[in-house]
């Protein structure tokens, strides 16, 4: 019996050995057969509102399938997958927050008809596939769904998409849905899947709340991942999600501030969107703190004026530094290359007003000679202006 995998196995780095042992124990394992997975992306498949361009998506599907099957013509390629006279079920996904796009279903349907399958013998379904007569009688299946994370399984891909064929979905949920692969042995499914299309137009890389969804964690990747082996297709999808998580989230699932900075600084639209979300909350939090702890308080905020926090202050000390010093510090402290440092400086333009604010006394301190000089200048100003800390 294989011992359970524990957290300590990951710490020891023996996970691969354990998995290998569990797969190989007492069996003659045949050499793995190579399989092909095609990833196609197109920058114009989504517009600014994430609406799908159906013609471009059709082209992406055609390119993926022709490359997958070494054909020059998409209709011939689909002709290798299905034959006229067949009954074909398209197992889609209707999850309300991130369903399979209708444009993708239509693109698949069109090529099946082009390949000679009668339109009335093509079905598209999700929740009722197990009892849908067309799927029960299907001779071929096309498996398609969006790529996303999943609360229990970790990821939802082409393997997870077939859970609706199972007599009991609950029975497949224990141990992080480890037994999902068994669905592919059910008679309604076995040996019928001709193509797996993992929709990565707007994948979801993290989830939260009861529905495990927030549009914050969806990004425009504009891709399709296509193959005949669902394990291989999902593996590519999983790598994509993991790469995105590494880029945006830290090791504990918290926001990686450096990665967030790389993403928004120098990109006005992204920065505006971020500030619209976090600034009102930050101002509210500061108000609460001031009420909870009455008395003199210091707010250390680079974007004090932009956030409107100056309205809560009795006086403002504006600390300035020449651009070259800020560039050097950004490099030293955050490891930013020259171009990213310049982009950050550009995005911070106007955070320290050149004219005194109408509602608050504003004083300027130059910070061009290091921490000791800054401290001395600050204390001197506080004494001169009789400001209380």
């Amino acid at each position, binding site marked *: 019996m294989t011992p359970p995998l524990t957290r300590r196995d990951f710490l020891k780095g023996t996970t691969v050995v354990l998995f290998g042992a569990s797969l190989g124990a007492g069996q003659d394992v045949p050499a793995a057969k190579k399989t092909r997975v095609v990833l196609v992306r197109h920058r114009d498949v989504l517009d600014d509102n994430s609406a799908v361009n159906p013609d471009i998506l059709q082209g992406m599907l055609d390119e993926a399938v022709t490359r997958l099957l070494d054909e020059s013509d998409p209709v011939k390629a689909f002709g290798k997958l299905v034959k006229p006279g067949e009954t074909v079920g398209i197992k889609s996904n209707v999850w309300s927050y991130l369903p399979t796009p209708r444009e993708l279903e239509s693109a698949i349907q069109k090529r099946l008809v082009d390949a000679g399958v009668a339109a009335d013998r093509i079905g598209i379904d999700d929740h009722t596939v197990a009892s849908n007569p067309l799927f029960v009688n299907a001779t071929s299946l096309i498996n398609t769904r969006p790529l996303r994370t999943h609360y229990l399984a970790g990821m939802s891909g082409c393997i997870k998409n077939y859970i609706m064929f199972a007599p009991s979905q609950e029975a497949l949920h224990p141990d992080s849905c480890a037994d999902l692969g068994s669905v592919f042995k059910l008679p309604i499914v076995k040996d019928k899947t001709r193509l797996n299309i993992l929709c990565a137009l707007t994948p979801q890389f993290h989830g939260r709340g*009861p529905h495990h969804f*927030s549009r914050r964690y969806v990004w425009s990747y504009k891709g399709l991942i296509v193959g005949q082996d669902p394990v291989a297709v999902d593996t590519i999808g999983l790598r994509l999600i993991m790469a995105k998580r590494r880029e945006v989230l830290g090791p504990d699932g918290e926001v990686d501030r450096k990665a967030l900075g790389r993403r928004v600084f120098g990109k006005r639209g992204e920065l505006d969107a971020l500030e619209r979300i976090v600034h009102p909350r930050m101002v509210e939090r500061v108000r609460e703190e001031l009420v909870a702890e009455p008395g003199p308080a210091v707010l250390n905020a680079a974007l004090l004026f932009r956030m409107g926090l100056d309205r809560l202050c009795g006086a403002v000390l504006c600390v300035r530094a020449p651009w070259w010093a800020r560039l050097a510090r950004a490099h030293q402290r955050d490891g930013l290359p020259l171009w990213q440092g310049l982009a950050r400086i550009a995005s911070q333009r106007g955070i320290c007003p050149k004219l005194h604010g109408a509602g608050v006394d504003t004083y300027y301190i130059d910070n061009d000679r290091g921490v000791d000089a800054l401290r001395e200048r600050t204390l001197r100003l506080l004494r001169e202006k009789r400001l209380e800390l």
Partner: protein
Amino acid sequence: MEDLGKLIPRTIGDWRASGNDQLYDPKTIYDYMDGGAEVYLAFDFRRLLARKYVGPEEREISLDIFDMGSPEEAYGILSCDREDPPAGIGQDSTYGFGLLRFRQGRYFVSVMAADEDERAGRAALEIGRVAAKALGPPGPAPDMVGLLPGEGLRPDRTSYFHANVSLNNRHFLASENILGLDRTTDCAFAEYDAGSGKPAYLLLIRYPGAEPAAAARRSFLSTYAPEADPEGLAPTENKTWVLAALRDRYLIIVLESPSRDRALELAASVAIPAK
């Protein structure tokens, strides 16, 4: 739950309820939640009232009210997935990025604006405030939480649950249920500031009797820390310590402790009630 729906206005500010309220029970919750249902079924989930509000630009806010059977169970489901700052609505509320969560009495409430922006966020908070008023008086936290040592405890990272699925979602321990957790076990899982920047963890489990608690300790040590000394202490690969200590029907497990002494100190500080 139907009556509860009548107590919550169908129009709140610019936002109107869309369609009829939907009700789900432990058998039908799968129809509504993809992937998360097990997490609720691992508690004493009874019924769910789901309502959608539609506002300006056809934006949508989901109001989900879960009847968890008791205030302790409502605390449990809330405590297993909280990461945002307090919102001051109902009990133990958290709000971040368009998602408000709180408990009130035996109810756990989630209000979510999928397309978050400032306006939708404000509306989600207002819907939550209105709903909280309809849910009756507040309720207590589980007694297990009160047994945890207070010093260094991070209350916002403390959770209460029963089942292995909840433990592994919170802190993966093993691919199998090596602690024998089920609906008969009560667990409190807490994070403690360890001074090293990384937290130490304390898992306190109450079993129905002393024998299953002892069996669980044996199972844990043989699987997770076979090299442990007679006290149940062992160093781990990331230069921290693990401890499994038994006190009557309580099993105390300390994970990722920065030192042997800190592990023993944490375990000794658990306020196990006298028989």
